[in-house]
């Protein structure tokens, strides 16, 4: 692996589902000579794209797990992470963004900025990842890259600037005009592998000059040299423009927009040049860790190979030879045989076989230096773990992980399936922090939890295919919560003094709604409850939060304040105060008007205009609230909030209502109180379950 980090790029490709991420990745690998044949997503050849290494991904035409791969372009190493486009898999996107230095945001030249692009953009903002945009599918009917560049401004707030102009659009799309070099690029050969540089066609010359002016104007904000050159009316070199744009990109102040068609092999090579020209190298990026030995102070990590090693495991895969752990090294260097410490559990590991990946093929390497992405074999760890040299105790900042909102019971068909299912679940929970599993002690069923129906469906499929674990699934269940709606007082005495060692504790105070999941406030004065029993009181209250007294759903949003109590010199104990707190909770809770809350999802439907009314109707029928509907060209975008419990099977309903022409995305928004009529149904259902 090259050690000159100026020649390294760690980039991701993010976009809305079906924008052509995987197709673009395939083309990049083809032009960088990593593959010798182009396979299409859902290709006619039945092979499927190289980046979609999971069988399921190839079948569905979506990328589920990010495949990391590396390639070389003009003496630079590019580590490429292909990221999933569906919202249900955003944890994958977030994990990828965590380890990337830059992103190519792909947009469809017909559909423009779509709902998922907005989610991905928010994630990029969260991790401050610089990006360039690529408007793909310029060969499609209705392609309008200028509109998309404008939408980047209006919808995502990017300071977008066109770096190219298209030479023809739709079926006449032949190439692009480079506004920096003022040259026209055409792509010849069977797969567009030969770039023919020609003069700009006469009919585009004026438009190109104008667009170049705009580009220079936008870039001049980031370079005094360029501003001076404009004022002095001297020649403006390509280098000057590129440097200015690069500075803007690094600060996330400008988003250069490139155009082309990955499917038709148009303008991928200039995009690769742009990755080198405008996206940052590991040296340009500021990375931090927290020092666990020093009060969790932030420490700046340096891409210095001689410093102690800091690396982050961002993805796990079960391979032929055991667990494959993808890592990004931020500082130091991991060589074969090095001892590293997993800061999560303090366990020491020895780096064995080190590799770098090309989707499903691997190449052995001797070391993974800072700034590079690679993979280790045979390491037992979870996704998100930090590995460091034994001399330091740093942790990379925790990733933003959401709580699951949907659950499903799964039952293995036989004993063999049971064993395989356990293996699979063990793997999946390590791979994906938003996928959780537990055994319901009352029913004995294994429950899996995740971020959406598709999320869980994919894992059930993977269980069957990869682990041969045949399982039957129950109906999906929504993760309801309970909360209180008003303040209430409690005063409870736990007293068992009927012989032998007694138990005594009195706890008094009040509970009230709050924003946090649970808060405990101690306002005991004068030693009415001795200090050593306060933690027991808190523990007693906290224990009640797991299962609400109303419907046995977890309780959230309760602040408990204790301000009075009593103890007995002999009979009071931690256990007695825990029991008193539990009693006090039950007493106060039912008086505090408890209600059930349900997860509300943000649902965005994109539909051809003619189906707008019926799509809005579908939302109405599902207790949904339409926030707005915007028509954009031939498509309408309907934004709404719908209870998750009403969304099961929605994709089928939507398909039949729109002749399969509409698509939707769904992500968790908030918890809201369930209407009384629905709450009654839930109570009934719970009672029936109990009887059964």
């Amino acid at each position, binding site marked *: 692996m090259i050690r000159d980090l100026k020649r390294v790029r760690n980039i991701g490709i993010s976009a809305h589902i079906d924008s052509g991420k995987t197709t673009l990745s395939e083309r990049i690998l083809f032009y960088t000579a990593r593959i010798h044949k182009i396979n299409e997503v859902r290709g006619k050849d039945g092979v499927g794209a190289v980046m979609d290494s999971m069988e399921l991904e190839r079948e569905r035409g979506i990328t589920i797990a990010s495949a990391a791969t590396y390639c070389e372009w003009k003496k630079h190493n590019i580590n490429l992470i292909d990221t999933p486009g569906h919202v249900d898999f955003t944890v994958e996107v977030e994990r990828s963004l965590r380890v990337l230095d830059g992103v190519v945001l792909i947009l469809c030249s017909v559909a423009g900025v779509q709902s998922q692009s907005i989610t991905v953009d928010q994630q990029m903002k969260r991790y401050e990842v610089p990006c360039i945009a690529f408007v793909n599918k310029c060969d499609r009917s209705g392609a309008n890259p200028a509109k998309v560049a404008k939408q980047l401004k209006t919808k995502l707030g990017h300071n977008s600037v066109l770096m190219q102009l298209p030479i023809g659009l739709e079926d006449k799309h032949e190439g692009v005009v480079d506004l920096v070099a003022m040259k026209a690029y055409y792509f010849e050969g069977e797969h567009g592998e030969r770039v023919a540089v020609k003069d700009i066609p006469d009919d585009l010359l004026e438009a190109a000059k104008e667009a170049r002016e705009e580009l220079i104007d936008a870039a001049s904000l980031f370079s005094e040299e360029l501003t001076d050159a404009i004022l002095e009316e001297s020649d403006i070199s390509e280098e000057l423009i590129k440097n200015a744009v690069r500075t803007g990109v690094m600060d996330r102040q400008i988003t250069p927009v490139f155009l082309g068609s990955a499917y038709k092999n148009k303008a991928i090579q200039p995009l690769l040049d742009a990755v080198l020209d405008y996206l940052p190298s590991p040296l340009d990026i500021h990375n931090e860790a927290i020092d666990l030995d020093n009060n969790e102070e932030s420490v700046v990590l340096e891409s210095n190979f001689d410093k102690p090693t800091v690396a982050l495991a961002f993805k796990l895969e079960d391979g032929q030879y055991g667990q494959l752990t993808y890592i990004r090294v931020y500082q130091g260097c991991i060589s074969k045989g090095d001892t590293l410490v997993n800061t999560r559990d303090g366990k020491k590991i020895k780096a064995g076989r080190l590799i770098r990946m090309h989707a499903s093929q691997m190449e052995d390497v001797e070391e993974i230096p800072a700034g590079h992405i690679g993979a280790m074999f045979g390491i037992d760890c979870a996704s998100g773990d930090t590995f460091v040299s034994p001399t330091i105790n740093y942790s990379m900042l925790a990733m933003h992980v959401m709580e699951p909102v949907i659950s499903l019971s799964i039952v293995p068909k036989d004993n063999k399936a049971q064993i395989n299912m356990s293996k699979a679940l063990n793997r999946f929970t390590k791979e994906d922090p938003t996928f959780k599993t537990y055994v319901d002690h009352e029913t004995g069923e294994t429950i899996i939890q995740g971020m959406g129906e598709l999320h869980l469906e994919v894992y059930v499929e993977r269980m069957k295919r990869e682990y041969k674990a045949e399982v039957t699934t129950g109906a999906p269940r929504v993760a309801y919560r309970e909360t209180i709606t008003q303040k209430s007082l409690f005063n409870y005495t736990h007293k068992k003094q009927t012989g032998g060692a007694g138990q005594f504790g009195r706890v008094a105070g009040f509970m009230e709604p709050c924003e946090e999941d649970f808060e405990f406030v101690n306002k005991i004065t004068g030693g009415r409850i001795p200090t050593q029993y306060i933690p027991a009181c808190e523990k007693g209250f906290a224990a009640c939060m797991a299962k609400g007294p109303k419907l046995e759903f977890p309780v959230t949003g309760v602040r408990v304040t204790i301000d009075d109590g009593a103890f007995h010199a002999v009979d009071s104990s931690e256990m007695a105060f825990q029991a008193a707190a539990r009693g006090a909770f039950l007493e106060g809770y039912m008086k505090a008007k408890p209600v059930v809350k349900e997860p509300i999802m943000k649902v965005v439907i994109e539909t051809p*205009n*003619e189906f707008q009314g019926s799509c809005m*109707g579908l939302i*109405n029928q599902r207790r949904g609230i339409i926030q707005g509907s915007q*028509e954009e060209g031939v498509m309408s975008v309907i934004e709404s909030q719908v209870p998750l419990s009403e969304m099961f099977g929605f994709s089928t309903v939507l398909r039949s209502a729109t002749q399969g022409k509409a698509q939707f995305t769904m992500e968790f928004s908030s918890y809201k109180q369930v209407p009384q009529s629905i709450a009654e149904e839930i109570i009934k259902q719970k009672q029936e379950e109990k009887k059964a």
Partner: protein
Amino acid sequence: MLKQDLNLRSPIEKIMGIDNITNSKFGAVLSRAGVGKTRFLVQIALTQLLKDQKIVHVSLDDSIGKINLRYNEGYTNLVDSIGYVDPQKAVRLWDDISLSKVGISYNDVTFDTEKLKDYLKSFKKADLPMPAMMIIDGLNFDEDITDILKKLQALNQEFSTSIWFAMKTHRDEAMAKDGYPVQLETRKDLFDKALFLQPVDNKIQAVVLKDGNRTDQSFLLDPATMMLVE
């Protein structure tokens, strides 16, 4: 409580009466560009939201983002007009009532009453309360839109949803002989309520053109907030 207070402060209560505005079939707010038709219509719609009614705001000019912004502004102006209100309470109330507002953004080409009909039908189908009011902003009344108005009239009859329009007039145009702007004159029978806004000495004068015995009454509004000038 805050809901009632806000509605009592609403300029609509004084000018037209809150219960009165949904009694109409078609209502119109007229003015030349930039005087405040949309902002006044937003105040009309807010009165219904504060009565826990649903409203649909259809715009042929504004994006959804802009529609939302206009409602946020309108609500803030209304809250500010009653002096001190617990900000958290005001925000909670807005979070609550704004869910009853549906913004739909079309352009001239894609505006289609059939889509609105499909949408309104779905309320019936799901046994949900119908929107009390529909605001239609951006229809070009300088063109022949008889067909569209006929279809909207049918919607009004079928779903009992009153419809309020923004009607753009022009500075250089003389009033028709009835004293109505020409855009209204030719369709005056369709509209049972109409209000004309015009700038007068740094204020905006709201003149009731059509509304039973309220006709010809006039009021002064603050151009910054569209609240009544005391």
